[in-house]
């Protein structure tokens, strides 16, 4: 990419970030305080009588989050959410104001956007490295971006200020249960078979490459992507002479669903996007890197901007800073310790954890009590 284009990109990013900065008066929080009339020492986000967040606890919990990031990946965002809801007691604090109160909803939105800052911001910005290293399929990137923008704008617009903590907990719990089921599927013989077959095929090819220099050359006419057929539902193309096809609607719908889910739950979405682009759209890794980076970046900037600027959702910056430090330390420790724990054992630990957290939040959210301890 040309340097001038890069500069333009940076300026565009700076302009976009301008739009997500926090309004000074945080009217929404002020309104919520005026309605609830809380009393006491200023605590979380300066709310009188709000929880006094100990950043050491935030820091220690984030070490655990960072450890998960560097060993499992996807579960990091979930654990960041568990930290904000349960460990810091923000969930109970929000609930104490009652379902219909403004304070309940503003704290719930703050939890969501804090999760997203923690998981998504670094994801989005680090993805620039992949963007530089990789390549971008612009039409697919645009299709995903359209879906992402729609999803990450619509969800804050529709739900900010309307979702009570209980409802959020319920949906968060269902998602965690779903993730637990997916992790469990990966450990079953059927889930393992696909991976093993891929490994075997890759090893066989590697062997044949070693035996005879198999790499082949292609005719210049066959080079790149050649679209054979393009309708609203079918895109058939050859990639260096090998035939592929996918449904062009899938990236738009997929981008929308992933961004909407990520925005609603307050997670990054990158962990859903990468396997989605590989398995559904069948893209090569070389292209997935740049394309997913673009979609994550656009979705994240848009979602945080919608929460913070359009809906004036405040966050506690000091807590986010302390948590980032914890994530860094956890991610240093992660690779050093995970080699002593077999991959399968690690997965089982997370399945148990997902079932526990999922059941607890789902039942607490939808039934009003937890069916697993502490009740």
């Amino acid at each position, binding site marked *: 990419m040309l340097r001038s284009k890069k500069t333009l990109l940076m300026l565009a990013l700076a302009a976009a970030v301008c739009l997500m900065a926090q309004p000074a008066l945080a009217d929404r929080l002020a309104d919520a305080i005026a309605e609830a009339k809380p009393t006491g020492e200023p605590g979380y986000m300066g709310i009188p009588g709000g929880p006094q967040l100990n950043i050491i606890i935030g820091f220690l919990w984030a070490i655990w989050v960072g450890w998960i990031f560097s060993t499992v990946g996807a579960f990091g965002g979930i654990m960041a959410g568990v930290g904000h809801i349960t460990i810091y007691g923000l969930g109970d604090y929000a609930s104490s104001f009652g379902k219909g109160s403004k304070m309940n909803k503003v704290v719930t939105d703050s939890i969501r956007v804090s999760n997203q800052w923690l998981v998504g911001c670094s994801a989005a910005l680090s993805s620039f490295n992949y963007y530089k290293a990789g390549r971008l399929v612009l039409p697919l990137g645009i299709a995903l971006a359209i879906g992402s923008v729609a999803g990450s704008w619509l969800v804050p617009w529709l739900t900010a200020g309307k979702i009570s903590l209980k409802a959020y907990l319920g949906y968060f719990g269902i998602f965690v249960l779903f993730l637990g089921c997916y992790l469990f599927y990966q450990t079953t013989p059927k889930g393992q078979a696909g991976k093993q077959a891929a490994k075997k095929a890759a090893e066989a090819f590697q062997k044949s490459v070693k035996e005879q220099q198999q790499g082949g*050359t292609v005719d210049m006419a066959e080079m790149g992507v050649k679209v054979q057929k393009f309708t609203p539902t079918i895109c058939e193309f050859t990639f260096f002479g090998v035939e592929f096809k996918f449904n062009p609607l899938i990236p738009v719908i997929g981008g929308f669903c992933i961004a909407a889910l990520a925005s609603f739950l307050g997670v990054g979405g990158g962990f859903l996007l990468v396997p989605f682009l590989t398995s559904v759209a069948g893209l090569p890794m070389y292209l997935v890197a740049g394309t997913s980076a673009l979609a994550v970046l656009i979705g994240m900037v848009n979602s945080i901007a919608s929460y913070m600027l359009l809906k004036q959702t405040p966050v506690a910056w000091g807590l986010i800073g302390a948590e980032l430090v914890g994530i860094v330390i956890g991610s240093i420790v992660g690779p050093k310790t995970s080699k002593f724990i077999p991959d399968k054992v690690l997965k089982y630990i997370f399945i148990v954890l997902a079932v526990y957290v999922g059941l607890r939040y789902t039942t607490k959210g939808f039934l009003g009590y937890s069916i697993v301890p502490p009740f």
Partner: protein
Amino acid sequence: MTGQIVYEFLDPWMIWAFRTSGNAYVGFALGLIWVALAATVIGELCMAGVYFTNKKHFRTINRDMVDHHNLSVKALGAKNKTAWKACNSIANDAFGKNFFARIALFASSLWVVPFGIGWLFYRFGQVDFTVPFLGSVGPAFVFIPVYILVRYLFSLAKPWLPVFKTIRQKVKDNEAGDEMLEFTDLLSEEDRKEYMRKKERAKVKPGLVKSKPVPEGS
């Protein structure tokens, strides 16, 4: 320990830059640049520290990703769709691991920023910054773009800055090995030269290269 204690600690380190000029606007601009620069330098040094603490891990996951990607390119060249799919899916798994590891690595360069913003709110939270069409905004509204620009300019200067130049070289050495193959590497030597020639000419006369493997990324 609450955020307040952190901000009180940061105060003397930050506020002096805001008082360097008699003009409030100039002083505020200089102060913002100072906070952004401090956040950038501390963040970049931390990122390097984290990278070198786990350099073996980063090298391994990077190699895994590059090797399987290269194998997938070779499979495509051999028109072996099964092998291409298998190698590509493993390369994608490796990319996923790399992606999350780099997220955590990048967080090590960002952790300073929220403290900086928090301190700005501690100091200037009561000041009304008014922007046309948007109304009242917070200090973060002006700080985040300044931080991005400072960080970008810093990244341009990095190859010439003593410590950072060495860091850059050491990272390069750590990840040295096979380069990530491009799809143009599947062309015969002659075709590739022809393609490169066309590409060079296209820089002068845009539109000459009609079929590119993929749009340019960088």
